[in-house]
């Protein structure tokens, strides 16, 4: 039975066309995935269904929920639909919960909206049950827990619990796992799938990554520039996709091993020796964020540092950059001991995760990219600086015209190119890439990875690539280090570690990272079982 039927739906915001003539159907118990790049309008569909659109939105067509057009509803009626029929989970779990209220209060508020007359004991019991349903044990996460005590994955579970507590008929999940670690992502996806089965609800899953949805979706809708370019049953889709954009997305979701001939140069340019960093938690407790970690990086080599959030990889990055004092251990850069002194800083530069947050919005690109010049000993004239900046911009695929522009005039991928240009400007030996591609769409991510590969071969730079995602790391590194709880648990050539992981944890990381080939295979197996 058709649960949701989006018919000839178009949307314009302030006279700008966002969506054109969209037709999508969702049945009860079915998972429909909308896949497309950011800006394709996919998130606007979910906002339109639940009618939480920005001001100035003009809609046409129909969105039928059980043959009842949601677009005709008044705000009051829509509130009732949000309470009784529609649930929603969002991309950013860190900010999706009210920081001042306990998770229990936030869940109970949702339940109370569906059952205004429920007694407080029953209410509490029901909230506890729903938390159990999203695999949050009562003993560890009592109702009076505040959100800041929870990790991103746990918070996302609470958001899911809030949505589920109202027993929705349709659950809209807008990039529900994009902000999470791969292992957490896999768990959340599994949970969502289980819920569809247990509760028989329909799910609209919005994502930019085909690999993520391939496993769970029954039906795939590909969107580009506000239009549906192709939609199919998942298995048929992967067998016979037609549109060139679908193929592009598919190619981006596949990963190839990175092969770079490191002309095995024995020169060690970065050495970290028994690095230990402790944080004081108060009450005489300490947290060993990094525990006795040591590794080396040779010239021209690309080293991956992989692990879940909280494993200490970013702390290591901050120590290497001289942004944080470390307790025990030593760091050498180019053979010299490094403790944050300015003289060595030009040897190592960094590209961070958030391409927008890492720029001052009021500076031009020229000024942003030229900034690291101040660590150089000799001072350059303005003309020399400009020439240099223009050269570097060309190298990362931008042009002279971009010199005078401001960060907001660029797309996410272009901004990350600017960040790379800024890192390259002092001609460093090492670039530290801290989750530098995690915030990007798959296609853009691949373009940036290609650029990085190119540069590393052309310029002979070494990368220290930090990520939670083994597949991304696989794309760009020769060697990889796997970390857990502040310590190194496995180390080796990337290809080797990926083929024969020794440690259980590494296996689980590989298992968790979205792999489209594996997903399709699994999907087909399931399908065969069902038809047999």
């Amino acid at each position, binding site marked *: 039975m058709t649960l949701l039927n989006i018919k000839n739906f178009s949307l314009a915001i302030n006279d700008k066309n966002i969506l054109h003539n969209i037709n999508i159907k969702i049945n009860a118990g079915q998972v429909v995935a909308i896949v497309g790049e950011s800006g394709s309008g996919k998130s606007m569909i979910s906002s339109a269904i639940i009618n939480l659109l920005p001001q100035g939105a003009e809609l046409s067509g129909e969105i039928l929920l059980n043959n009842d057009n949601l677009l005709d509803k008044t705000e009051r009626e829509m509130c009732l639909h*949000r309470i009784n029929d529609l649930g929603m989970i969002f991309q950013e779990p860190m900010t*999706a919960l*009210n*920081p*001042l209220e306990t998770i229990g209060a*936030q869940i109970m508020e949702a339940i109370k909206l569906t059952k205004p007359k429920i007694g407080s004991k029953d209410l509490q019991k029901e909230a506890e049950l729903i938390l159990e349903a999203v695999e949050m044990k009562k003993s560890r996460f009592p109702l009076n827990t505040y959100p*800041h005590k929870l990790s991103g994955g746990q918070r996302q579970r609470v958001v899911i619990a809030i949505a589920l507590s109202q027993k929705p008929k349709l659950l809209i999940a807008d990039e529900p796992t994009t902000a999470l670690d791969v292992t957490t992502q896999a768990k959340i996806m599994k949970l969502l799938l289980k819920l569809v089965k247990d509760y028989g609800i329909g799910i609209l899953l919005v994502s930019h990554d085909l690999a993520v949805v391939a496993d769970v979706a029954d039906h795939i809708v590909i969107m580009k520039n506000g239009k549906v370019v192709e939609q199919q049953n998942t298995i048929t889709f992967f067998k016979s996709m037609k549109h060139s954009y679908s193929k592009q997305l598919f190619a981006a979701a596949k990963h190839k091993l990175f092969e770079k001939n490191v002309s095995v140069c024995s020169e060690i340019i970065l050495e970290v020796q028994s690095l230990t960093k402790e944080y004081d938690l*108060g009450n005489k407790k300490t947290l060993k964020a990094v525990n006795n970690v040591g590794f080396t990086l040779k010239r021209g080599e690309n080293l991956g540092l992989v692990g879940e959030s909280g494993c200490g990889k970013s702390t290591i990055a901050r120590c290497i950059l001289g942004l944080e004092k470390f307790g025990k251990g030593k760091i050498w850069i180019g053979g010299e001991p490094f403790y944050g002194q300015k003289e060595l800083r030009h040897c190592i530069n960094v590209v961070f995760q958030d391409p927008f947050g890492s720029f001052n919005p009021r500076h031009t690109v020229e000024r942003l990219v030229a900034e690291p010049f101040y660590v150089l000993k000799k001072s350059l004239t303005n003309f020399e600086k400009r020439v240099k900046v223009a050269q570097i911009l060309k190298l990362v695929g931008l042009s002279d015209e971009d010199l005078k522009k401001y960060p907001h005039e660029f797309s996410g991928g272009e901004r990350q190119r600017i960040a790379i240009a800024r890192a390259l400007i002092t001609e460093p030996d090492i670039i530290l890439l801290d989750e530098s591609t995690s915030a990007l769409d798959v296609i853009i991510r691949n373009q940036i990875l290609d650029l990085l590969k190119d540069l590393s071969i052309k310029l002979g730079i070494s990368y220290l690539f930090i990520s939670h995602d083994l597949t991304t790391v696989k794309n760009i590194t020769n060697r990889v280090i796997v970390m857990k709880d502040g310590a190194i648990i496995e180390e080796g050539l990337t290809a080797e570690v990926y083929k024969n992981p020794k440690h259980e944890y590494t296996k689980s990381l590989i298992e968790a990272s979205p792999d489209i080939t594996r997903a399709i295979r699994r999907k087909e197996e399931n399908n065969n079982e069902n038809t047999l």
Partner: protein
Amino acid sequence: MSSFLLKKIISLIITLFVATGVIFILIEVVPGDPVAFMMGLSGSTEAADALRIELGLNVGPWARYVDWVWGMVNGNFGISYTYRVPVIELIRERALVSVPLTVYALFLSTAIAIPAGLISASRRGSLVDTSFMGVAQLGVAIPNFWFAILLVLFFSTTLKLFSASGFPGWDAGFLICLKALTLPAISLALPQAAILSRVMRSSALEVMNEDYIRTARAKGLNKNQALLRHGLRNAMIPVLTILGLQFSFLLAGGIIIESVFSLPGLGRLVFQSIVQRDLIVVKSIVTLLVFSVVFITFIVDLLYAAVDPRLREGN
């Protein structure tokens, strides 16, 4: 929680201690000899020396500082040079006017500003919003003594509802005193309410774009419910900061309004004491004001913690 409180209390004490030092030094370097002022032109040297001994001004600055601080710790602020009564009496009498006036004004300003700010935010760009913010603009721009005079002209002279000035003293009865303080409180409250409502509005607008408001809306709360249940407390932090500053400002800063309405408040006492070189009174009042500022900040910090569970843990 206890360590949070302890840290705050220690920093409170240190701040006060530093403040007394600064006040003492400032008063020391201010030109003008209180003894010469009190003796007038015809005083003899012997009489002046006797007076110095009587006032405790014959010893060195260090001893005087210790004396002064120790006296205050024991509740003895000294004797006013000009009025010849204990300073604490003077202050108590005046504070009985100033503190209620400040509380009254702040109450009015909060009662006006918070709803006005919230309504403006939830109907951003509407006629209501524009007119509220227009009035607020006016409230900031109008000098409050002039507004006070307008109030007197209208309510006292024309309508004869309130007396134009003076304070009957609390013996006259609570309501009568409240009535006497009403016009001054309104004139003090207007600019504060204007500022506060703008802060409330922008803070609420910011909060309304937060993800958790969207979560609340997705649960099925309507816009106003989401704002009141989830937005208000989150939006209160900047408002509390401003409120704390306003309290301290009003406590001593009411001098112009006190003058317009002839109220015997702290502001006027400070002014008179400065003119008469009654330095012991000046020192004491300034210290008390610093104490109240620091104390209010302390209370505001506690309120932050009450609002935000993350602050309770002391990070």
